[in-house]
């Protein structure tokens, strides 16, 4: 099933020779947490078959559909299907691929953090403007009296 490549990290995880936080598994795929997460939720969905890149999938191969379905399921299980997530595949070095065993990233959670930071910065800016307006008003009030 796995058609393992000897030096492939993901093949070793699939074969149980390396540890990983597995969140899902079926006959064709396995999903586990990225060991260097770029976001609070960062899952890698990998086919059990060793396929180097997206370019190596054949016309009749429906594996990418399965990866998409698994992403739907995991996003649902983790409660981010409706709030939102990113599903992406990096292809070759210029595309950011580091492990040459096809894998899809499911990433969620960063945008919410960014949103709260933007809100916090916005509130701080508005507060400073308000304070300076009040001070200016006080000074003017003081001059006229």
């Amino acid at each position: 099933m796995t058609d393992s490549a000897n030096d492939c990290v993901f093949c070793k995880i699939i074969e149980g020779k390396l540890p990983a936080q597995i969140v899902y598994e079926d006959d064709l795929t396995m999903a586990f947490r990225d060991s260097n997460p770029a976001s609070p939720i960062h899952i890698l969905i990998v086919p059990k078959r060793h396929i180097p890149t997206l370019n190596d999938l054949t016309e009749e191969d429906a594996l990418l559909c399965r990866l998409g379905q698994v992403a739907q399921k995991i996003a649902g299980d983790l409660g981010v299907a409706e709030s939102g997530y990113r599903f992406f595949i990096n292809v070759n070095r210029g595309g950011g691929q580091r492990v040459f065993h096809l894998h899809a990233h499911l990433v969620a959670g960063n945008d919410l953090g960014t949103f709260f930071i933007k809100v916090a910065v916005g509130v701080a800016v508005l507060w400073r403007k308000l304070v300076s307006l009040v001070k200016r008003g006080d000074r003017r009030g003081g001059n006229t009296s």
Partner: protein
Amino acid sequence: MAPMQDDCVFCRIVNGKSPADIVYEDDRVVAFRDANPAAPLHILVVPREHIATLNDVPEGSDIISHCGQTAAKIAEMFGVAESGYRFLINVNHGGGQVIFHLHVHVVSRSNPDMGRNPGGRTSK
């Protein structure tokens, strides 16, 4: 196939009612340049069928695989298949989805082969 949605920008492009710089099309998808590219090469692969998000792709549908095949073809056409590219689907607002018609971003920061005409038509 889901009927065209009059208020959907991508349905309008797919049906030739809005202009786009189309680089590839077949019976299931249309691919065109993003109007606000985030990289030197930024193509959107859009299924002709109106599906709102990745969450709405029905079980048993092979549209995502077809989009993957199309992405690989486009990468080849623009000379970035080997140098590298990213296949990206944003899902819902928090995932960065702005237009609610399923679409795949094919993005490459490598210098695409601008001199080649990938053979698609440009709709007016």
